[in-house]
């Protein structure tokens, strides 16, 4: 029951670190919820350890806790903060499951805390796959034929009854975790084990609907039983490929009016029957022949799809859901876009959007490239336009995967039909290639089960491509218009017609072909929009953004989330926009990632949801005439555009494009360092394999770090420990980019890594924060555990680091944010790299020091005065630790070993009075559990075993944890009288294996520090590491981190924990 009284103090559960299946969309939904409640005068308390989010920034929630979202923490905070109501549906699956647990244990009722929005009973009905089917059957809504199983044996029986293939799905799961289609009897056992292994007690074995259309509706309903269907979406990839892994369009394209209405009606009926209040989505499988459907699931919470639908329609689902959760009526909530209508309406789109996932599978050693019902993608984009071809081409470019639109020759396929039939991230290119080579739509549809509608539209694009290829001489303006409307870039048109990008642009200008800027106004032009949420299209004839008397500044966003670039850059952009706005600038945000806050149309004055490319920015500047462009807030993607934009005459605000080029170009940067006397790891260019060995010896021998200089996605950095490895790496690198040399650097072992984040103005430092890594250099800074203030650096090192920053700021005449990474060994300090832009750690250092680095940088770039207190690192009475979050469990087969390539998908930042406390808080917030049963040590070479003796003793004697060890480690421990149980490293060896011990729960912490590598550079101990990941057992693979953890466990053992809010720790 909804109480008519408004709550006084509401706890909002965030989603914690970004991980595969649960990413930035929850920053967006949580931020909107907090805004919506604030407007009502309701106080909000937020729990979210994800320090890079916007929702945890000052000025939003009244209180923020950077701690894990666990039942224990939540219940303590509920009590401590005298909370009277809680929001569960804005933090994804983690928040929902935690809420269910608290309700189940009676905590919520004991504390008199009301659950806002959808009642817990309805959440259970949707999360419990068995209950769900029953509830739908009550009103005659169809679901797939299925059996709810609680054991592997039951799953076998169910599969027999249903007949293969079958689909396996877990309850209470996220992103299709552990799910999959089983085609062969022989695969059933492993698949069922995997499904149960993902932590669920319930697995649904059901009729396989592979190849059916996958359709989704977003529904909102208020507590007065008013409901609307906000958005319909259709998947390009049919059933069997998770929606998160699918290319998706909105609105649906292949359903007739009657079918569309039927599904909409069923959705509303079901939502009403379940009693959902707020937002939910409903997923359908729809037969491609005569109409038939099955409901697959309902997510009674905000989701990735709801973020997408919000951006696709302009309807702020999360904001509205929050209003409804406190009892507001849909027709009482205003439609912020029109300003004169209400939230009770169904948006009409006058455009089509296309969402495309971005994967980074090639960052994971050993990962399979196949995609299916489990999520593996790490980010997404949304393209807006007026034909599918246009948005598909735009979308592919937005992904930033080195392919310029729907290029049928972008990839080579050994077996084209296989590439079409069995989905991988490259399927869309395989389809294009087949169509371009004349394979019929019918045949491609048969292989892929992709609806011929999509294929027909793709063929349309390929036909334009053929016309472009055939056109000789100066391209006719009719064809040029057709090509632009079909989504071809100037560059590609140039390539196809034998012209340069610039000359195509000139030709376009002469022909008067400039894209219009059309608004997304929720009502397809029926009511005028007050907001400026626009997209560019050559189908649009006008620029709908009105002129302004205020100076405009264009901020470039970060594009799709990917490994190495995610919510932190969204935070930077949003924070920067606020600062610009406060100075009286009209802010233009350019971004295309639907799971961000920066693409919320009330975060800036003009939101342009479009490509971030030279072409789009030039067109945009011509239309909107900004005084300048900010390239330093959105990460590497905009940073890379600085030079070409400057060359094309665009004014770059802040540090000059030439300086950015010096920092980015290894040769130039290295020369600069030499010139001003700053040390750097030695490096050389290698152009052929023959000379490599000689080059390595010039560097002083192995190990060396190898970087393909032209980093196309997939061409990764690697460390070579011996000649054989180097040869292998080079041969692969050469395959990618034959004409580009490879950079080989001396890999410095046992060096500490130091990170400096700073803001400068005209070469003078304004603000500096220095942090250190717990791990030795060699673990990518994005995967490292970062500590602020540094706990173990020598004072001279800190001084030297500062001095180098001062010199570089001056030399590069930096204005704006920058970041330098250093190697420190003894008293030597070397510079690894310098980025003249906001870094990944900027929100962390900002929140840990309570200094608005991004805002101050923005003021500096806009020439406004800044007034800021310097940070005295020695005076801080607390420690902040940033820890990475990995998603290895979702990437079957991937080796969870850390190295110089980043693999983490998210991060948290937590506080403590000392390093131990802060470290444990942050580890726990990424899923680490304090070991209780036993610890497995597998420590590689002798030196590490020596280094770990003390820790091993602490584990056993002080923490009373039984030790298990693989043979070498066992011997080493025995030699110093440390008792342990010997376990085999390989199943082939005699005796109980380490993998069994992990699976059986004998150990709940695995410390595995490999030091031998095969010819591919692969470290040994893979099976142990993978077993730990698959069994959800915390795994540590770096010695310094392992020692820090043991130390933290020792110092914190038996001591009470203080749960403190951000403002109680970091003084304002």
């Amino acid at each position, binding site marked *: 029951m909804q109480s008519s009284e408004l709550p006084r103090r509401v706890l909002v559960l965030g989603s914690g670190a970004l991980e595969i299946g649960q990413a930035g969309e929850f920053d967006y939904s949580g931020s909107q919820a907090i805004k919506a409640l604030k407007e009502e005068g309701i106080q909000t308390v937020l729990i979210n350890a994800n320090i890079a989010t916007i929702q945890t920034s000052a000025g939003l929630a009244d209180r923020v806790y950077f701690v894990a979202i666990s039942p224990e923490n939540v219940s303590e905070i509920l009590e401590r903060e005298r909370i009277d109501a809680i929001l569960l549906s804005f933090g994804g699956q983690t928040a929902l499951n935690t809420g269910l647990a608290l309700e189940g244990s009676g905590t919520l009722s004991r504390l008199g805390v009301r659950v806002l929005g959808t009642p817990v009973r309805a959440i259970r009905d949707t999360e419990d796959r068995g209950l769900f089917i029953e509830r739908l059957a009550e009103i005659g809504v169809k679901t797939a034929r299925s059996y709810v199983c609680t054991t592997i044996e039951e799953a076998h029986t169910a599969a027999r009854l249903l007949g293969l293939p079958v689909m396996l799905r877990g309850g209470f799961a996220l992103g299709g975790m552990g799910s999959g289609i089983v085609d062969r009897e022989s695969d059933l056992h492993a698949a069922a084990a995997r499904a149960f292994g993902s932590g669920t007690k319930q697995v649904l074995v059901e009729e396989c609907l592979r190849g059916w259309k996958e359709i989704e509706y977003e529904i909102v309903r208020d507590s007065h039983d008013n409901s609307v269907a906000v958005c319909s979406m259709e998947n390009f990839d049919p059933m069997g490929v998770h929606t998160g892994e699918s290319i998706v369009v909105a609105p649906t394209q292949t359903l*007739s009016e009657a079918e*569309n*209405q039927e599904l909409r*009606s069923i959705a509303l009926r079901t939502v009403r029957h379940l009693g959902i209040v707020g937002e939910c989505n409903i997923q359908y499988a729809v037969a491609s022949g005569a109409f038939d459907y099955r409901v697959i699931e309902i997510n009674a919470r905000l989701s990735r799809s709801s973020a997408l639908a919000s951006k696709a329609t302009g309807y702020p689902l999360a904001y509205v859901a929050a209003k409804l959760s406190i009892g507001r009526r849909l027709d009482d909530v205003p439609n912020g876009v029109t300003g004169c209508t209400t939230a009770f*309406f169904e948006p009409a*789109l006058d455009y089509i959007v296309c969402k495309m996932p971005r994967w980074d599978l090639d960052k994971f050693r050993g990962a399979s490239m196949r995609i299916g019902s489990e999520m593996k993608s790490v980010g997404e984009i949304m393209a807006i336009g007026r034909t599918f071809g246009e948005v598909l081409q735009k979308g592919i470019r937005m992904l930033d995967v080195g392919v310029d639109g729907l290029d049928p020759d972008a990839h080579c396929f050994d077996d084209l039909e296989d590439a079409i039939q069995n989905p991988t991230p490259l399927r869309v290119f395989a389809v294009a290639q087949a169509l371009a080579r004349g394979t019929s739509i019918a045949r491609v549809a048969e292989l892929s089960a992709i609806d*011929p509608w999509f294929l027909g539209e793709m063929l349309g694009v390929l036909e334009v491509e053929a016309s472009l290829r055939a056109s000789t001489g100066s391209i006719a303006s009719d064809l040029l218009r057709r090509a632009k409307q079909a989504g071809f870039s100037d560059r590609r048109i140039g390539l196809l017609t034998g012209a340069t990008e610039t000359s195509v642009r000139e030709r376009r200008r002469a022909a008067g072909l400039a894209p219009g800027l059309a608004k997304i106004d929720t009502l397809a*032009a029926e*009511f005028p929009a007050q907001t400026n949420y626009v997209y560019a299209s050559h*189908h649009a004839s006008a620029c709908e953004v009105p002129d302004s008397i205020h100076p405009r500044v264009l901020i470039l966003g970060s594009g799709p989330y990917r490994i190495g670039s995610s919510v932190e850059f969204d935070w930077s952009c949003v924070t920067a926009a606020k600062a610009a706005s406060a100075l009286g600038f009209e802010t233009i945000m350019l971004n295309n990632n639907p799971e961000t806050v920066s693409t919320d149309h009330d975060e800036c004055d003009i939101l342009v949801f479009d490509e971030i490319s030279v072409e789009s920015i030039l067109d945009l500047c011509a239309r909107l005439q900004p005084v300048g462009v900010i390239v330093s807030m959105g990460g590497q993607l905009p940073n890379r555009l600085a030079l070409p934009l400057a060359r094309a005459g665009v004014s770059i605000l802040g540090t000059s494009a030439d300086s950015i080029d010096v920092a980015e170009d290894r040769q130039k940067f290295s020369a600069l360092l030499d010139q001003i006397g700053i040390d750097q790891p030695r490096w050389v260019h290698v152009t052929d394999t023959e000379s490599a060995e000689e080059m390595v010896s010039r560097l002083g021998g192995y190990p060396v770090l190898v970087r393909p200089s032209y980093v196309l996605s997939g061409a990764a950095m690697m460390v070579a420990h011996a000649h054989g490895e180097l040869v292998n790496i080079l041969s692969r690198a050469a395959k990618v980019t034959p004409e580009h040399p490879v950079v080989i650097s001396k890999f410095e072992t046992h060096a500490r890594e130091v990170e400096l984040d700073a803001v400068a103005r005209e070469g003078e430092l304004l603000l500096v924060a220095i942090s250190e890594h717990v791990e030795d250099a060699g673990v990518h800074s994005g995967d490292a555990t970062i500590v602020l203030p540094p706990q173990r650096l020598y004072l001279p090192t800190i001084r030297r680091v500062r001095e180098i920053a001062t010199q570089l700021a001056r030399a590069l005449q930096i204005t704006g944010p920058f970041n330098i990474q250093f190697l420190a060994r003894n008293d030597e300090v070397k510079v690894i790299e310098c980025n003249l832009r906001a870094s990944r750690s900027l929100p962390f250092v900002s929140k840990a020091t309570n200094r608005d680095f991004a805002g101050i940088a923005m003021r500096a770039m806009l020439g406004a005065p800044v007034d800021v207190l310097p940070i005295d690192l020695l005076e801080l009475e607390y420690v902040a630790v940033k820890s990475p979050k990995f998603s290895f469990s979702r990437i079957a087969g991937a080796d969870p070993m850390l190295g110089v390539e980043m693999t983490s998908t998210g991060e948290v930042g937590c506080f403590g009075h000392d390093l131990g406390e802060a470290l444990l808080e942050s580890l726990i917030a990424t899923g680490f559990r304090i070991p209780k049963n036993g610890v497995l040590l597998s420590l590689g070479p002798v030196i590490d075993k020596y280094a770990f003796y003390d820790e091993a003793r602490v584990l056993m004697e002080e923490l009373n944890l039984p030790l298990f060890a693989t043979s070498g480690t066992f011997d080493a421990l025995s030699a110093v009288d440390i008792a342990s149980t010997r376990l085999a490293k390989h199943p082939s060896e005699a005796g109980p294996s380490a993998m069994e011990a992990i699976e059986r729960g004998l150990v709940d912490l695995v410390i595995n520090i490999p030091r031998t590598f095969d010819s591919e550079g692969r470290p040994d101990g893979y099976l142990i590491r993978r077993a730990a990941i698959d069994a959800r057992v915390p795994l540590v693979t770096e010695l310094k981190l392992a020692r820090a953890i043991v130390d933290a466990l020792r110092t914190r053992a038996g001591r009470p924990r203080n749960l403190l809010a951000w403002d109680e720790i970091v003084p304002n």
Partner: protein
Amino acid sequence: MRAELRLEDGTRFEGTVFGAAGSAVGEVVFTTAMTGYVESLTDPSYRGQILVLTYPLAGGYGVPPDRPEGSLIGPFESSQIQVQGVVLQNPIDRYSHHAGTRSLSQWLESHGIPGIAGVDTRALTIHLRAHGTMRGWLIGGESAHGAIHEVEMDNVGWLVAPLEIVRYEGGDRTVLVIDAGAKDHLVRSLLARGVSVLRAPFTAEVAALAATVDGVVIGSGPGDPKQFGSLIDATRGLLRSYSRPIFGLCLGNQILALAAGGETEKLPYGHRGVNQPVRELQTSRCYVTSQNHGYAVINESLPQGWEPWFVNTNDGTNEGVRSTEQPHFGVQFHPEAHPGPDDTAYLFDDFLQLVHSMEKQ
């Protein structure tokens, strides 16, 4: 082949011929519905008008084969394409649907209905919203200079009303549908609920027919309600003497209001689409409705004994009227949908419950 749309105020939109290569003239109106082109184009309420499909992709699921003569089956809402012409942006020729047998273009061509593609329909919609609906000329292909057939809008109702009275068997009770351009789904909606339907042109002897049935539905139709003077008069008679349920839909709502002594006005650019939100005043329940009308009842004009029933939550205009004394009521939207959501289809149930609650005629 080039085509052009010229608006009364001189604005021009260029494009290419779509459907039949011909020309057309009519009031230019837009619908923002994203699906439902077959239903809309066959909706008699669009008679005489040039319809702009604002949603930029048209024809994705093709068109099913023509239905047999005399049949009522959907998605067709009448036996012909009713619009004068169609304006759209990006036609889909490679349509995909199990029921589709031809493209939208082929269908229009086979019925001789001209269209224009390649128009920035959003820009056109904004123009019509800002300046109100206006007359326009669609000029396409060779026939650019030929005579253009224009529908006499003052009498458009006569064009779309059925020629004769038809009875559809569906059950024990009979409902009279007064047809001035009603969609077939109105009849289907009643039949599906187990009553028989007597479908009569609005020009028929309404009073006499009403006396033989258990309830009356006044259906939708094109244009200005005031053109239907005789129907308004006949309805006035019914309101005085007829104590059985009368349900007005769209045009029928306006007829009821006018007959009762109320007034109607022309809306600047009408309500056309499938996402019009309405609120039932007494219960405050909101519904998403399908609409297609250019005129509205003026709430304040309703006489004693009548009250507004629903209002539009976007612009506050009237969306329904009802008598406070008799079972006589009307809604401005289309509970029969097609195209559009069926949220208000329950009104047929309510109406028929009333019908059944009275003694059989």
